[in-house]
């Protein structure tokens, strides 16, 4: 059983192919244009691993928070694959992705930076989410970081994706990116 994961939340575009819930192939590319490379990278990894797109039985998308355009494109492509192949779609947040990649044995906060601030997720030692995600400014982050254990910029342990309860079942018509940060007209 193959599943395909799409991660476009940052300027590093990750496409991960799982076989029986274990990593079977990864393509990572730093790019300013997710739009240009997203579909070609999916094509590349499947060709490289000699897997046909129709053999994919599950699609997973990192639905944010992070680059608005990035996660929107990731979600769009993932749900289109889910629609066309009639296969289930699951989501995982970018913060959960980092949370499951640390071995820390204490309560901790995961931080993902954007130009004006940080997206924050707070987790217990057993990796359960303690409260809703938030977005804080660079200044607020300085104070916040002095009072909390911060996990950021760590490599992602893709094999842990299926080990914890972070994957969420989604419906391809209703899945939404996690934007978290408010835009001007929402304020």
């Amino acid at each position, binding site marked *: 059983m193959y599943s395909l994961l799409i991660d476009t939340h940052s300027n590093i575009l990750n496409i991960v192919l799982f076989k029986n819930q274990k990593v079977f192939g990864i393509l990572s590319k730093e790019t300013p*244009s997710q*739009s*240009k*490379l*997203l*579909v*070609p990278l*999916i*094509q590349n990894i499947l060709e490289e691993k000699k897997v046909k*797109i129709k053999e994919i039985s599950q699609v997973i998308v990192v639905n944010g928070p992070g680059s*608005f*355009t990035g996660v*929107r*494109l990731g*979600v*769009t*492509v993932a*749900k*289109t*694959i889910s*629609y*066309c*192949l009639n296969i289930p779609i699951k989501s995982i947040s970018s913060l959960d992705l980092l949370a499951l990649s640390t071995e820390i044995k204490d309560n901790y906060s995961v931080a993902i930076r954007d130009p004006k601030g940080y997206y924050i997720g707070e987790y217990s030692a057993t990796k359960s989410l303690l409260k809703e995600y938030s977005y804080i400014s660079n200044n607020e982050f300085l104070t916040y970081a002095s009072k909390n254990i911060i996990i950021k910029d760590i490599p992602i342990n893709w094999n842990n994706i299926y080990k914890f309860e972070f994957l969420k079942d989604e419906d*391809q*018509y209703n899945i*939404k*990116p996690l*934007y978290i940060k408010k*835009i001007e*007209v929402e304020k």
Partner: protein
Amino acid sequence: MSSTKILAIETSCDETSIAIVENGTKVLAMTTNTQISTHAKYGGVVPEVASRMHAENITIVLNETLEKANLKLEEMDAIAVTYGPGLLGSLLVGVNFAKTLAYIYNKPLIAVNHLIGHIYANNLENKLEFPLLTLIVSGGHTELLYMTDEYKFKLLGETLDDAIGESFDKVAKVLGLPYPGGPIIEKLAKEGNDFYKLPLPVNDGTYNFSYSGLKSSVLNLVNNEKMHGKEIRKEDLAYSFQKRAVEEVCIKINKALDEYNVKQLVVAGGVSANKYLKEKLEDVCQKYNTEVTIPSILYCTDNAAMIGAAAYYLYQKKIYADLDIDACSYLNICD
């Protein structure tokens, strides 16, 4: 003759539209999800909101279109998509959606210029006959082109500042009218007279257009009247403004018809829905025995069927796009 079915996708602004077009002329099905009511709350299109709504609605719109046509994606001959010009975030959703479909079903991907789509919208109802003049009038564009054959364009002139549709929307805003203001100006003008003295368009002997001066003079007039405690007669101002705006177009068309011997004047873009403009253009063209063709409302505002119509020529010539194509928010018709 075998039939070619193209699935066409348009998301360049605030309409999520998908159509299936046969042989570039027959619309088998089209679904358009308009976001106007959402953006009306903000007084204009908010790009980030538009992009979000495209991403939310796109597979729903696809599904509805396939159901209406009773066709499957496997039965399409190609996937066509608007890749520019337009709002970048909105275009990106459509382009990546199209690339995914083209990849999964192994179909040719056709990248269509939105403006060429507007011109080819005419093919859905009234075949283009060359040589022709084409006038694109919308919220983002005011361009006059000469076409000698399929996809052979010569740009004669364009706006140096605001687009004509943009000036309608801005004047509507000054008058306190809701978004989108163009159609409301037209409606008000029907009840008005040429009471206000607005400057005549500059006739500089070129084919270029200019609308910011006219817009500013409306703004100044409204401010002046307010300062003198006078009530603005909205109907009259709408009339005077529309008259000048259309006059600007007619002067250029007149000049072009003097210079070029054409069979048709093809009007494209959202403002071509304006009946007053149509009437005035017909008056000008009558003298030259030139036919004015304007698509019906359904095909002159943003829609995917026109993209399918424009894609058909590219399909015949096998002009396909690669899967690494990107959207372009700025794109000229002659690129």
